[in-house]
């Protein structure tokens, strides 16, 4: 699949933002006043920036509000609702903390739940697609949620929680890559089932057109896979190993900030691979994966 920068920014930033808001929502002793303002502005800003980036992906962004209508069948529509609910609840919860130093506990819990829902529904947009076997697996929402929790813990300065989460999310990411490489073969979709031709070996002889097309650009993105193995090492180092090492150093704000930046860069790289390495079954019609 084409790794569109708008979608990578959307899933990375909104995951981070909702992760931070989740930890603020479940915090028994949440920050108040100016400190709260900084935290909530960061969380809502990241989540909002992610959602805006996703609108840049649309062919007709001026009609984006129509996406709220089909929550009964569509995960994308559910994601729109969950994100709007999470930002509204956390906005009110944060405003009470910033302006009046009041901790609306129940609202915090509800907001945290909605933040989890927003990340979960985002992941389900990809997980639901049977056409992309690498994504069509329960581990996709598990990893999205785990990465959001990790990034949120890191951003909100929860060092003792962040260290085990960084290690766990790194491990899960590794397992997802290992298993993901085998899912296309497991799905059972081949050129033989795609064309229904039997009785011999099938080869794509001629494509429909000499030029490329929307399908090939969008769903048969193969050029970026050359350095995939190296990028996996870079991604796991930046998102998991390096931040863990930095947090284990004697605490300093510079190290913590570096850990956050490294983690974000690592997650963005992993998200790039999430798209670039995802093979859509339509590629089989072109003799490609």
């Amino acid at each position: 699949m084409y790794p569109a920068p708008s979608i990578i920014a959307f899933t990375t930033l909104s995951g981070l933002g909702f992760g931070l808001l989740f930890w603020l929502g479940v915090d028994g002793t949440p920050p108040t006043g100016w400190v709260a303002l900084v935290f909530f502005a960061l969380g809502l800003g990241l989540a909002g920036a992610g959602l805006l980036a996703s609108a840049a992906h649309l062919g007709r962004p001026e009609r984006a509000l129509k996406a709220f209508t089909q929550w009964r069948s569509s995960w994308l529509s559910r994601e729109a609702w969950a994100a709007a609910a999470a930002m509204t609840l956390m906005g009110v919860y944060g405003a009470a903390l910033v302006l009046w130093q009041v901790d609306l506990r129940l609202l915090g819990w509800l907001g945290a739940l909605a933040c989890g829902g927003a990340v979960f529904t985002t992941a389900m947009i990809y997980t639901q697609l049977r056409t992309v076997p690498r994504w069509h697996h329960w581990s996709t929402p598990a990893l999205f949620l785990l990465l959001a929790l990790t990034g949120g813990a890191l951003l909100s300065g929860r060092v003792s929680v962040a260290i085990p989460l960084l290690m766990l999310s790194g491990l899960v990411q590794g397992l997802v890559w290992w298993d993901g490489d085998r899912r296309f073969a497991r799905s059972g979709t081949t050129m033989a089932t795609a064309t229904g031709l039997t009785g011999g070996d099938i080869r794509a002889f001629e494509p429909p057109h000499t030029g490329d097309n929307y399908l090939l650009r969008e769903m048969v993105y193969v050029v970026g896979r050359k350095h995939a193995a190296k990028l996996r090492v870079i991604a796991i180092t930046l998102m998991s190993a390096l931040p863990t090492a930095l947090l284990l150093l004697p605490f300093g704000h510079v190290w913590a900030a570096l850990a956050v930046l490294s983690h974000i860069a690592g997650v963005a790289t992993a998200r790039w691979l999430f798209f670039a390495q995802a093979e859509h079954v339509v590629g089989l019609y072109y003799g490609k994966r």
Partner: protein
Amino acid sequence: MTCLPDKTDRQLGLVIDLDTCVGCHACVVSCKGWNTEHYGAPLSDQDPYGADPSGTFLNRVHSYELRPEDAPAQLVHFPKSCLHCVDAPCVTVCPTGASYKRTEDGIVLVNESDCIGCGLCAWACPYGARELDLAAGVMKKCTLCVDRIYNDNLPPQDRTPACVRTCPAGARHFGDLSDPASEVSQLVAERGGFELMPEQGTAPANRYLPPRPKDRWQDDASVLAPFLEPVAQEPKGFLGWLDRTLEKL
């Protein structure tokens, strides 16, 4: 609503004969022509006369080489357009309600004024039947020429999809696949018509008829066969000497 109907009154669709298709791409051209001039946004091209031409098509013809182990290779032309699935995954993923499946005839359509161009339906389709038009920013797909098949202004013989009407080989058939007595259903039963990617669970309406088995050479096909053996297996004379000498070097 982008929920799928429990049941449709009819299920219109195409039956494509892989045995008769000659790969002329006339269906591609007539489809592009009709659908550019009629229903919805035109099918745009980008850089059509330049170095890197590309465009929106609702129907594309692939060609495959089938290579049996004990027979000559066979070329199969393979037209592919929307299969108007009973369990269309493209419809349920749509966040705006632009994509829908009609209850009366099972045709899957896009209401272009509701489409936000998110592209998720194209991702959900295993067949590559949907293409985002880069000029209009909305999703385009085969309408089964819904503006022809019910069009009283056209002579009766033209009330079929443009691709079916134009096919010079008679490789494309249009009809109601939910009616077992219809011509297309009987054709499917007779020729062993199959679904594409059945494991994807889309229950496509369109069916493909397999290429008929080809004739094969039998043993001793000709009484002259023994006389047609190659005469000189090993070079003799000067060539033989050259061959042996070069071998030794």
